């Protein structure tokens, strides 16, 4: 931080982006700052604080749920609208992040922009087929959340572009969802496993399943084989066993390690037994 020469607090996303793209002074955008304040590179000259941007909203747009990027974990945790969506899984996930003091500061945008594998929301948003609205020098565009972490994706959130909002599609509103964070303590920032699970049920049959994991590899990933093992089947002990076996083989491929593999499998089996 020793070279910071400017503290900017723009009031519009356009002004924030202009500061970010100004090559005369290397800039970084910060919202809550909980993941970045202690680790800012010394090359940063312009510290752009996003707290005044009008992006703290949580609302419905059409039939989708839309959450602005500067909404804090506490706001997501306590939003009635979020609690009513997908079994309240986003609220439940927000409540599992670290401590209340951190939840008061940390934002949704920061949590997905800073690529720590143990972050709470990436696994959840990946599983919910979320979209992300970005502002870059070419304008505003919406990309699938999965694109944000794809190797070769050219924009770095917070350095080349701004995350404006996250869009949770209407189809997920009635999904049966679960979220588990497995960590040393409830308040630990660094989870060993974050696991999102969802099932779209129809007449007792799982029409579509979603299983996504974080903290087990540098980037969150979906367990497609385990999802396939569950899709189109009536839930039974055999179906649970097949899904767990598929998940284990995927975790072997991801080199998650024996302990984490066993723990994730237990968490998945536990969720499936609650449906």
């Amino acid at each position: 931080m020793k070279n910071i020469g400017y503290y900017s607090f723009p009031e519009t996303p356009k002004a924030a982006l202009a500061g970010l793209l100004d090559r005369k002074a290397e800039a970084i955008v910060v919202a809550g700052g909980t993941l970045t304040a202690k680790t800012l590179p010394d090359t940063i000259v312009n510290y752009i604080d996003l707290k005044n941007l009008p992006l703290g909203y949580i609302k419905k747009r059409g039939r989708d749920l839309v959450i602005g990027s500067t909404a804090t974990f506490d706001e997501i945790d306590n939003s009635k609208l979020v609690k009513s969506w997908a079994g309240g899984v986003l609220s439940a996930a927000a409540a599992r992040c670290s401590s209340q003091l951190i939840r008061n500061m940390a934002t949704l945008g920061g949590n997905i922009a800073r690529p720590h594998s143990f972050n709470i929301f990436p696994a959840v948003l990946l599983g919910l087929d979320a979209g992300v609205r970005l502002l870059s020098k070419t304008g505003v565009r919406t990309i699938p959340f999965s694109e944000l972490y794809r190797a070769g994706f050219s924009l770095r959130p917070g350095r080349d572009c701004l995350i404006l909002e996250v869009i949770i599609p209407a189809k997920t509103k009635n999904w049966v969802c679960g979220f588990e964070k497995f960590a040393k303590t409830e308040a630990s920032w660094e989870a060993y496993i974050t696991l999102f699970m969802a099932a779209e049920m129809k007449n007792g049959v799982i029409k579509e399943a979603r299983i996504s994991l974080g903290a087990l590899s540098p980037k969150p990933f979906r367990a497609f084989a385990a999802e396939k093992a569950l899709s189109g089947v009536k839930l039974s002990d055999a179906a649970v066993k097949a899904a767990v076996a598929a998940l284990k083989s995927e975790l072997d491929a991801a080199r998650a390690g024996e302990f984490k593999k066993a723990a994730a499998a237990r968490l998945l089996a536990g969720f499936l037994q609650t449906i």
Partner: protein
Amino acid sequence: MKKENTRLEALNGMFGIELSVNGVKKTFKVKNDEFLLDALRRHGYKSVKKGCDTGDCGSCTVLLDGKPVLACLIPAFAAHGSDITSVEGLGTVRAPHPLQEAFVEAGAVQCGFCIPGMILASKSLLDAHPDPSEDEIKKYLDGNLCRCTGYVKQIKAVKMAAKKLKRSRQ
């Protein structure tokens, strides 16, 4: 406080910031790599404690625009234009805040290092939820670590303070 510009410039690595601390307008000179915790302590607000300095212990809790936050994670310059409340702003030895009274009466204070942060987090809770459940108290205080008493008496103190505040409102 209302911000009038949207950018501050450092001179020789120092920012001049304007903020309100415990209801009093102040102008601080702060270093560009200094955190709010250190700036407040340097300006005499010693109730803001330096514990872990990594956002884990809650000793440095202050209310920033009414919300409890970790002063060790906020660059000092980022407090420009904010309203800060520390425990010095709640009550005095002769006229303590009901929360301060309750913490003493419940025997919730031993070494006292964590208590300013805990009281400020509790104040935020009671402002939002005047009659909190035990689970709500535990959730609100989950970021304030105590290594002396445990947490039973502190939870009791918050319940006592809620009753005191309720009586004072009647």
